[in-house]
């Protein structure tokens, strides 16, 4: 149905499942999902609240262990059994979360936040001047001034500045995969365009795979190559953005898309 994709697989999952709870009172959050994300793609995982999007994201990041199934990273079975291996894995996959206010250690200055990123990429031995140069470059990328950021604590910044600083971190880390979990749902529509702009620019610069986890169907349509629609822990539909969003096949996708307010088409309120 969709045109064959050329690039190598980057992250894939086979029968990935997460069950919460014990005994008879269990909840299946993610139910045997299979996927294959290719290198350099922009992927969106769209679903309503409670569909298991964030649980899936946490499994991809290795923050929680899957109940069943395997994650393959660059064709190899992912191994995060020890702390050292986990650290190695996190050099390749990084995340931006919904709430920038709780994403920082409140006791660390912004310099420390950025220096940690440089150290993680093996830059511990670099001279001080070189480190400052790198930090200035990263801040400049997201239109922040390093001179204004240095010696400050995260709470002294606004929400938009914090989210941009998150992107500056990713710029320093240059991971292979960036997972953005609702990166724009806490900020207003106008700043949303700015954040998306930086993320796409970063992707072009670093050449990474970008995974958006979102309930904003408009956003998924604008940014992504491939869209996965998630309902009750299962992928119900997937394909190119144009195919899934403009010509949905599944009733669930059709309903979800009809619920988004439109501008050029009539928005039918009678369907709820």
């Amino acid at each position: 149905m969709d045109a064959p994709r050329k690039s190598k697989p980057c992250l894939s999952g086979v029968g990935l499942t997460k069950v919460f709870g014990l005994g008879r009172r269990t909840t299946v959050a993610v139910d045997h999902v299979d996927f294959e994300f290719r290198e350099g793609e922009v992927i969106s995982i769209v679903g309503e609240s409670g569909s298991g999007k964030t649980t899936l994201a946490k499994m991809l990041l290795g923050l929680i262990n899957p109940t069943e199934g395997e994650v393959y990273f660059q064709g190899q079975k992912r191994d995060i059994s020890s702390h050292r291996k986990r650290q190695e894995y996190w050099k390749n996959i990084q995340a931006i979360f919904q709430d920038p206010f709780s994403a920082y250690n409140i006791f660390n200055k912004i310099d420390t936040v950025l220096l940690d990123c440089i150290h993680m990429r093996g830059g511990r031995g670099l001279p001080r001047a070189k480190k400052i140069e790198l930090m200035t470059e990263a801040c400049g990328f997201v239109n922040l001034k390093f001179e204004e950021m240095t010696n400050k604590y995260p709470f002294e910044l606004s929400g938009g500045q914090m989210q941009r600083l998150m992107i500056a971190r990713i710029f320093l880390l240059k991971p292979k995969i960036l997972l953005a979990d609702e990166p724009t749902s806490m900020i207003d529509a106008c700043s949303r365009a700015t954040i998306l702009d930086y993320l796409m620019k970063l992707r072009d610069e670093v050449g990474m795979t970008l995974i958006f986890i979102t309930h904003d169907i408009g956003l998924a349509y604008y940014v992504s190559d491939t869209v996965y629609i998630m309902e009750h822990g299962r992928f119900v539909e997937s394909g190119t953005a144009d195919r899934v969003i403009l010509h949905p096949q599944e009733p669930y996708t059709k309903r979800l898309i009809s619920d988004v307010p439109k501008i050029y088409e009539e928005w039918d309120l009678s369907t709820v």
Partner: protein
Amino acid sequence: MGKVVLDVKGLTTKYITRFREDVYAVDHVSLQVEEGKSLGIAGESGCGKSTLALSLMGYYFPPLHYMSGEIVIDGRNITGMKPDDVRKSILGTEIAYIPQAAMNALNPTRRIINFIEDVVLAHDPTENKKFIYDLARASFETLGLPADVLHKYPVELSGGMKQRTVIAVSVILRPKVLIADEPSSALDVTSQKMVIKMLKNLMETGFIKSMIFITHELPLLYNVTDDIMVMYAGQIVEQATARQAVFDPLHPYSKGLMGSIIVPESGLRDVKLTAIPGAPPNLKKPPMGCRFAERCKYVRAECRVMAIPLYEVGGGRAYRCILSEETLREAYGRAA
């Protein structure tokens, strides 16, 4: 022209910070809402949308202070009333307000019906419980909410249901004007649609006469309201019908806002999103001239020195820019 339900003239309110600095968050705002109409207020975070909503109720408590202007609801002037009198005789009966996190307004330890009793008794302590129950039941049924919600605790309801319950409770005394401040931004698309449908239903079934809807989601505003008012740095920068505001914005700021609209419709994927560079001005020291001058693409020398009035174009349309309609439309590359 219909009967004017809410008439606001030159309303100015300020915050006094703890360093005794004045921040004029609402600056000479005038607006009129007719019976059966809804008005949308759009703008970035921090441009004064929510402060305007609070100011419209006439219920001021520090750090928000009333400065000047007049608020008339259905012929009744409420300016200068004591906060206590406002709470007892205005809120809920003349004007009602739904805040963004409305669902947190419910008391987790009490059933919904007890909450409704509190609301009604605060306005008329002589009402009996049977009457309140019948009123609540009738209201819930008209609004399409199941009546058994009345006997439930807030924790038993989903987020969307809680939000709709709060809306139903806030209109139980049939207020004339309802102010909804981002009522759906914490909800997913399906619950959002239910909330919107309910709000539209309120006007049709006569629960409220008119509505003010505040949000930064422009596609939503376009679908819900008749008119749109764009605010920037405490001032109105554009007033127009919803259609004009989205497809033919005049003020450069409104134009910028419309450039950030994302909707999943065919052919829009390749349209470049445009963000407005920079940040809104600090209102402790507002700029002397146009407040948008720093971020405006079409800025001229006189913009920075001259305070710009709101130009009326006719047909209820107004904008705050020194450039003429034709110049602006030409700059946006659009035929008049």
